[in-house]
């Protein structure tokens, strides 16, 4: 304890007391205890990789959201809301809710009925081995890289906030995640994600409550922001008519069609990191309810992420700046707004819980990446391409070892990012190259029975290649931004939105064109995979309150109301 306290004595944002450290250490003990407890229940492949497919809708739904909540969400989007205002909430509302409801009501039946263990596994069933190979190799590669970037980001946060050594933070967090995922598999990752979700709320909820009291409520907050920055920072839609009328430099078409229709649809419906959690549901109704429950809570997340950023803009005496400027001047960067607000209101005990919430967020994201990597590596690469006829026990053993190896590669990536920071931008761009076209491929695969195997593969390849091509074009010639993002004023985020839109359209066009000149699969082979030739099982007689469509409608109405209220 004394050693830990002594380790945290360098330059730092907050000072931890003994009770804070007890809370943090207790968290690490508890997540490891869950991993050891669940070890005995991860003996078969179905148990280890799919959590036995027996999760309730609540557990699958909270885990579905928590796996996403981890990756830089808390710190990054709080910083983005300080920088861009309430526009950042688009990534939680239009950039998530329609896609989650679409996954629940339209796509989940096909994922679930096909009994696939992964998204690449669905592509194998629908389009054949080449499509699976392309998607699984890309996904596995990107996932471990993203995991490493998250790991480095967490270590950096702990260094800035607590003064902890980067190597110590990387080692302790990665070893903990490796132990509990390798022991209990997906079930352990899911259980810990639910725990982490609750801790994130318990640790972060006090900041907006106290912040609103200090600011004098929402109207007081708006008035302060109008004085400190601009009234535009508290409007969600009304400033999106022109690219240069809002802090983000984005047009409403980019938000609606790029973010809402493509990027979020791609992420929430085809990124195996999140879809894997829903596939673990105990039955089809639970699998449909899980994303709806996730959507309900997703709508509330801006309360603990976006609102603290806005409160920082309204209440902090110091002006936060970009990362580069912060390093040069010794000031605080946008990304530090959440810890700064934590230090403003939270004393001993509460501070420990707040820091635990940050650590829990990063660890749930890391565990999500690692468990998804393990499944795709073992089932879609190792079993499909390297060793086809091994026993179930062999694949479980491979799953445990690939967890350890995945974490080890992530650690390597974390150190790579430390030396070559531009890698972080490249990898995040690479990740986006794949998600948007994949959505086009999976959507056509599920809804259009004429889509052929060749069409699916070439569409996916063309979409990915075109996305990479547009990115490289703008890198080499920045003036190309006017063509890719439709405006020379567009900023990075706007460019991502439009690049996603074009690459998905190219994927769809190529898939349709190639499918029309190649032979489709016979209907008999498409049962359980495609709309029109698949009989969706009846939910039986259940009350309206138990029906997914009812809760999807409730979430949809609240979503529309929120957008109107903050227009």
């Amino acid at each position: 304890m004394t050693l830990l306290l002594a380790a945290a004595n360098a330059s730092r944002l907050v000072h931890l007391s003994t009770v804070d450290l007890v809370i943090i250490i207790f968290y690490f003990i508890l997540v490891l205890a869950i991993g050891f407890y669940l070890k005995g229940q991860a003996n078969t492949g179905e148990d280890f990789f799919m959590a036995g497919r027996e999760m309730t809708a609540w557990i699958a739904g909270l885990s579905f959201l928590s796996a996403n909540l981890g990756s830089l969400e808390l710190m990054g989007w709080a910083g983005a809301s300080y920088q861009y205002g309430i526009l950042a909430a688009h990534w939680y509302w239009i950039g998530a809710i329609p896609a989650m409801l679409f996954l629940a009501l339209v796509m989940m039946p096909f994922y679930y009925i096909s009994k696939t263990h992964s998204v690449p596994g669905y592509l194998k069933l629908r389009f054949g081995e080449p499509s699976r190979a392309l998607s699984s190799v890309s996904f596995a590669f990107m996932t471990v890289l993203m995991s490493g970037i998250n790991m480095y980001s967490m270590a950096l946060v702990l260094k800035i906030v607590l003064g902890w050594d980067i190597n110590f933070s990387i080692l302790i967090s990665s070893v903990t995640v490796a132990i509990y995922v390798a022991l209990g598999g997906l079930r352990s990752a899911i259980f810990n994600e639910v725990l982490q979700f609750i801790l994130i709320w318990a640790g972060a909820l006090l900041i907006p409550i106290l912040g609103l009291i200090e600011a004098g409520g929402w109207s007081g907050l708006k008035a302060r922001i109008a004085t400190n920055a601009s009234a535009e920072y508290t409007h969600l839609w009304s400033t999106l008519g022109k690219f240069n009328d809002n802090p983000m430099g984005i047009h409403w078409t980019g938000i609606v069609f790029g973010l809402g229709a493509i990027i979020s649809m791609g992420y929430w419906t085809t990124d195996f990191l999140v879809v894997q959690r829903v596939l673990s549901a105990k039955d089809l109704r639970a699998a449909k309810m899980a994303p709806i429950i996730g959507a309900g809570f997703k709508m509330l997340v801006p309360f603990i992420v976006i609102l603290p950023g806005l409160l920082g803009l309204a209440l902090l005496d110091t002006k936060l700046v970009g990362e580069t400027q912060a390093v040069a001047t010794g000031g605080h960067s946008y990304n530090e707004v959440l810890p700064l607000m934590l230090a403003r209101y939270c004393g001993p005990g509460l501070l420990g819980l707040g820091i635990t919430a940050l650590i829990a967020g990063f660890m749930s994201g890391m565990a999500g990446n690692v468990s998804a990597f393990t499944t795709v590596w073992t089932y879609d690469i190792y079993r499909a391409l390297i060793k086809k006829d091994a026993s179930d026990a062999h694949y479980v053993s491979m799953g445990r070892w690939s967890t350890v190896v995945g974490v080890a590669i992530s650690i390597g990536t974390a150190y790579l990012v430390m030396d070559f920071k531009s890698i972080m931008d490249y990898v995040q761009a690479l990740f986006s190259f794949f998600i948007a076209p994949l959505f086009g491929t999976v959507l056509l695969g599920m809804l259009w029975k004429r889509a052929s195997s060749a069409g699916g593969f070439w569409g996916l390849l063309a979409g990915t290649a075109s996305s990479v091509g547009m990115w490289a074009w703008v890198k080499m010639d920045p003036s190309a931004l006017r063509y890719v993002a439709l405006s020379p004023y567009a900023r990075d985020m706007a460019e991502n939105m439009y690049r996603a839109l074009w690459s998905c359209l190219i994927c769809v066009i190529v898939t349709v064109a190639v499918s029309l000149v190649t032979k489709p699969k016979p209907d008999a082979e498409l049962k359980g995979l495609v709309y029109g030739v698949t009989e969706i099982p009846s939910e039986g007689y259940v009350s309206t309150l138990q029906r997914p469509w009812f809760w999807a409608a409730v979430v949809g109405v609240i979503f529309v109301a929120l957008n109107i209220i903050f227009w």
Partner: protein
Amino acid sequence: MKKGGSISIWFFIGISLLVNGVLICGAGIYQLFYPPQKELVLARLHAGVWWGAFLAIIGAVYCIHFVPNKDRR
């Protein structure tokens, strides 16, 4: 809700909230008598005391409701 064996995930969550709540509430009460040198914004609200108590109560309810092997007794 008791998936994954005889101990429910909600029991683990109850333990976590109960322990954290007791620690935070205890630290908050200690600060009532020995205030920290650097005063926090809105320190007069004593957030640690009521937030810690709230977490401890929720945690206790979950622990009791999802206690392992309750059905066998």
